[in-house]
């Protein structure tokens, strides 16, 4: 029985290959992508590549049924990353082989997976008689160098055509690789006051993040900067939470931080119990003081 890693147009699957290699059987990468993606995925740990071709102007999603067919011929555990196209391919596979889907895995062994539930406050271990479809962080791109065999497989992609791409006007935020993140929540009273948070982020050489209501409801901060269960999940060296109470959904996005610092008016806010350094007080005096101390 093979273990599969789905590759949806980019080679950022190193974590998945590492997890797949711990299970029995060969690791097979099922690739929808250009030549260079195939060359990158031909890396140590990947025993075989089944290449369904370069999507060209089709969306990777067009190949979902083709990917499912490859896995269904010899069903096994399947891994895919968290990105949209990766999820679409994994969903088609889960449908085709009737496999349960597991998200947020913590520990994966043959026939058994432990996953985090409820935003990471609890875990649950289940045993499985058949294959499971696992969604997890893809990790860094593979860079080739393996003795991997490549088999080209015929595909009959669906009519899903990319007709246009309007690039972002501002570069997408990359909170995931930032060492320091200053994140702001509902404790901020007005959009204009973001200036003091931005000044702190600059002095701290940090990226700006926020809690969900600040991005989605108030629209004060770009949506790709929102930290939480359905937003960014980050593990910086320092996470400085300003005016954030620390509800479950938010904490599941930042719990991996090495150090958490909280500035909050409420000494009983949930974030206090999850902080390394706690500053209880008004952010409007503490933030400028901290910016000055860093400057």
């Amino acid at each position, binding site marked *: 029985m093979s273990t599969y890693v789905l590759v949806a147009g980019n080679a950022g699957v190193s974590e998945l290959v590492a997890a797949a290699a711990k299970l029995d059987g060969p690791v097979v990468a099922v690739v929808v992508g250009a030549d260079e993606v195939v060359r990158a995925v031909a890396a140590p740990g990947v025993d075989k590549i089944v290449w369904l071709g370069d999507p060209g102007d089709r969306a990777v999603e067009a190949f979902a049924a083709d990917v499912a067919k490859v896995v269904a011929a010899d069903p096994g555990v399947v891994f895919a990353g968290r990105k949209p196209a990766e999820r*679409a391919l994994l*969903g088609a596979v*889960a449908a085709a082989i009737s496999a349960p889907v597991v998200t947020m895995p913590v520990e994966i062994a043959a026939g058994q997976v432990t996953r985090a539930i409820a935003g990471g406050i*609890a875990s649950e271990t289940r045993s499985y008689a058949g294959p499971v479809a696992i969604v997890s962080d893809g990790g860094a791109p593979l860079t080739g160098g393996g003795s991997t065999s490549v088999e080209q497989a015929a595909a009959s992609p669906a009519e*899903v055509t990319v007709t246009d791409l309007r690039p972002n006007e501002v570069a997408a935020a990359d909170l995931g690789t930032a060492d320091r993140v200053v994140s702001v929540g509902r404790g901020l009273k007005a959009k204009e006051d973001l200036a003091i948070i931005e000044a702190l982020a600059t002095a701290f050489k940090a990226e700006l993040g926020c809690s969900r209501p600040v991005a989605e409801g108030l629209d004060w901060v770009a949506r790709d900067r929102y930290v939480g269960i359905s937003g960014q999940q980050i593990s910086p060296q320092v996470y400085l939470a300003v005016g954030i109470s620390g509800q479950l959904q938010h904490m599941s996005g930042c719990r991996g931080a090495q150090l958490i*610092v909280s500035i909050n008016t409420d000494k009983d806010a949930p974030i206090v119990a999850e902080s390394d350094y*706690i500053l209880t007080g008004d952010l409007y005096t503490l933030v400028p003081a901290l910016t000055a101390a860093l400057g």
Partner: protein
Amino acid sequence: MRIVVAYKYAPDPQEATVASDGTLDFSRAKAIVSDYDAVAIEYGRQLADAQGAALVGVSVGGEAAAKPVATKAALARGLDEVVVVSDPELDGAGSTRTAQAIAAVVKELGDVELVLAGDSSMDVGARMVPSVLAGLLGWPMLSDVEKVTLADGSVSVERLVSEGVQSITAAAPAVVSLTSEAVKTKAPGMKDLLAAGKKPVAVKSLADSGLVAVSEGTVTARAKLDGPARKGVVIDTSDPAAAAAELVNALRAAGVLG
């Protein structure tokens, strides 16, 4: 023509508590139509009106999902009718089992041009039901969509991808999951709630749906997950400048200042 909105009636996770053995307690959490699914219903309403299509809500869950308070809450947001697959075995069902039940309803309804879904459920947030559903139906899956246009047997969307806004055209029917901000929602008014009481509701059991649901494994252990141990140092803030200096010193000592 029908447009289907897949929605979840779920307990608000803000109210969930976890016992020391890792068991989750949702008993004090109030159930509502999951936040982002309300976005899908509102978007579906506008699309259905423009197309002259019927808007059908499909939901899957335990007994609570079929109660009048649940179906009315969804209907009041603008659905024409709802079909609920309700079974104790579907309480807390995973993505594959849920998608299988939705797919059975969609196939039985027929004449469905589009299935809309929200960005994620508020209680689990796996974001996988639409993808599995698309796989089961053999339809294209398009996620993170901000705008949908239906015309001449095709579905055109604008979706947010990491590089920017991508336009895609696919052959209909398709499964589309929307961003959380595809449209603004508003709370239903009294008139909407009264009208909701008169709209058709069909409730099916797992047996009615003719479904042999996927096995979701056997729970062998639960635990409370403690995050990394935290220092819990309270810095005295009576003098803000001194507090700031103390924090900066601590961060410098930890070697995390850039």
